[in-house]
């Protein structure tokens, strides 16, 4: 049916427009337009994404530029409370850094780690799940045994262990430089199981369908069938899990950084900011830790809401 519409409306622009309008009228968009909470969550997520990825352009201060720091601005409260400055809306930290700007840069780091580790988990999980489901037999049992064992350990613990291991493998300076990569791998490896299990289940259903048999009959090699024909048909649920996993990955990264084993203070994520700010909680300088905390919670909550909605919207059973 897609090809019919394509024939009827030639030209790239028209085709794109057509696809867009079909998307706009689809069931998924319908359920999106109907629920105000989801729209709010979407808007909040977008604001955070934009604030984070364009932080270098729109942040009011550059927190990495030591020359702009002024100790006389240290530990200023938020602008609306007594003694606050209008230059620093959410106040400053003990070095005189603007908390709002720190949050924007920190969120960039958090989101980078979140997206990268989910991408890593998806790659590993989908690949292994595809192989396990399509090949079956001993390969399947081995992969799924490992998955079962890993699933019985909480991801945060696995990420902590991987991080601890690399910390002992690498010399201290190198580890700090590679902290981001290490974190991405640790969190990714902690979360691949869900993807593998889902994809495997779907592949086992798909591989007995006629189109796969047809592809086999005309003599295509197995890897080609698995990747070109089966894979696109099993990716739907992966998207849903990936969204929910993004929230989980962001929390895990923040938790590790809060524990002091994630990102170093030279490259602070939201978790690092909360940990540093936490040291000043008892002296009454609550804004250094509460604002990054609130930003983190809002981000995770919005992503969770979007994930929940996506899961329901794509699940025909729940309609």
């Amino acid at each position, binding site marked *: 049916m897609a090809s019919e519409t394509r024939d009827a409306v030639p030209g790239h622009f028209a085709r794109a427009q057509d696809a867009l309008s079909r998307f706009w009228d689809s069931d998924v968009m319908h359920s999106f337009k109907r629920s105000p909470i989801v729209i709010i969550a979407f808007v909040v997520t977008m604001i955070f994404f934009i604030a984070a990825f364009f932080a270098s352009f729109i942040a009011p201060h550059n927190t990495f530029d030591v020359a702009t720091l002024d100790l006389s601005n240290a530990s200023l409260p938020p602008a609306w409370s007594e003694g606050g400055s209008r230059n620093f809306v959410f106040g400053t930290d003990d070095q005189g850094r603007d908390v709002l700007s720190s949050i924007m840069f920190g969120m960039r780091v958090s989101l980078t780690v979140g997206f990268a580790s989910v991408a890593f988990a998806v790659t590993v999980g989908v690949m292994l799940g595809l192989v396990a489901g399509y090949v079956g037999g001993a390969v399947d049992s081995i992969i799924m045994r490992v998955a079962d064992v890993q699933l019985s350990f909480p991801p945060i613990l696995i990420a902590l262990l991987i991080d601890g291991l690399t*910390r002992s493998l690498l010399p201290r300076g190198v580890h700090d430089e590679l902290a981001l990569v290490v974190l991405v791998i640790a969190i990714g490896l902690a979360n691949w199981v869900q993807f593998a299990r889902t994809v495997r289940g779907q592949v086992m259903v798909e591989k007995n369908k006629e189109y796969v048999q047809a592809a086999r009959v005309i003599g295509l090699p197995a890897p080609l069938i698995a990747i070109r024909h089966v894979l696109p048909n099993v990716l739907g649920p992966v998207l849903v899990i990936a969204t929910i996993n993004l929230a989980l990955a962001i929390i895990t990264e923040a*938790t590790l950084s809060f524990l002091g084993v994630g990102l170093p203070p030279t490259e602070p994520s939201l978790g690092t900011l909360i940990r540093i700010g936490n040291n000043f909680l008892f002296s009454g300088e609550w804004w250094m830790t509460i604002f990054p905390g609130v930003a983190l919670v809002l981000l995770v909550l919005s992503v969770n809401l979007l994930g929940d909605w996506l899961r329901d919207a794509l699940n025909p059973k729940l309609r």
Partner: protein
Amino acid sequence: MIAYVLRRLIQSMLVMLTVAFVAFSLFSFVGDPVANMAGEDASQRDRDQLRRDLGLADPFPLRFVRFVGGVLQGEFGFSYRNLQPVARLIVDRLPATVELAVSATALALLVGVPMGVYCGLNRSSALAQAIQAVSLVGISLPTFVTGILLILTFSVGLGWLPPFGRGDTVRIGWWQTGLLSVSGIKSLLLPSVTLAMFQMALVMRLVRSEMMEVLRKDFIKFARARGLTSRAVNFGHALRNTLVPVITITGLQFGSAVAFAIVTETVFQWPGLGLLFVQAVAYVDIPVMATYLVLISFFFVVINLVVDLLYYAIDPRLRDGGPGGTGKGR
């Protein structure tokens, strides 16, 4: 039944051995304990002597066998950081973590299950929707943010509860309990609520969705048609059938309570295993890390075993297909 239990036991032991091997080999190839312990100005001869004293000069298989033998006897070596036997550190810290995890899990179940049942039964009521919304916030709140918010409110703001430590403890045998003193109980409140928050939300959501699922089933309609009271239907039939997943989750949740205790203990400086482990990771204290890894996996293997056996006891369908049907079908 016995064959099944035996098979699960052997499987669990294999997992444990693997973990022990991984822990040992990884930790024995990385980092040099001698460099850590001897200090900067030790001579080469002192270092070699220390290496021999620690048994690090022996071949790898011998050291692994000695490691496993030691673990079986409760010998875990010496901590590089505090230069104390790891076993002593663990015994000192274990009660704090167990008390925290048990009270948090109990709290999560006592609050989570009834809320879940309520929301499953009256899912369009305003209260149910409010609970559902709050539970999403509960899931989205990272443990440490919850902890910080609670400290800010109840310790810094109101000054009601202590923000860190365990309070006064009473020693019963080797078990150092904080449950028998007023300050101990007061100190336990904030950490256990913090730790319970996430699980509470999870348990509540699970029970709710399971209840909704079960209530749609035919046997519920049939029970209603038979004229049973709605209480008998809801609790006798529906709730009982939601128990299998709830037991699994509770088991696994107790495990993750111990894992997340790492975070909670850091926030509240609670002197438990988690805090010990985080400090070990930060200082690359390998014997402590290895011990924690072995202990925690032992713990998880036991939990999984118990959960599987409980399945078997609760769900007669698993028995029908014979023991062979249970291992892989999950």
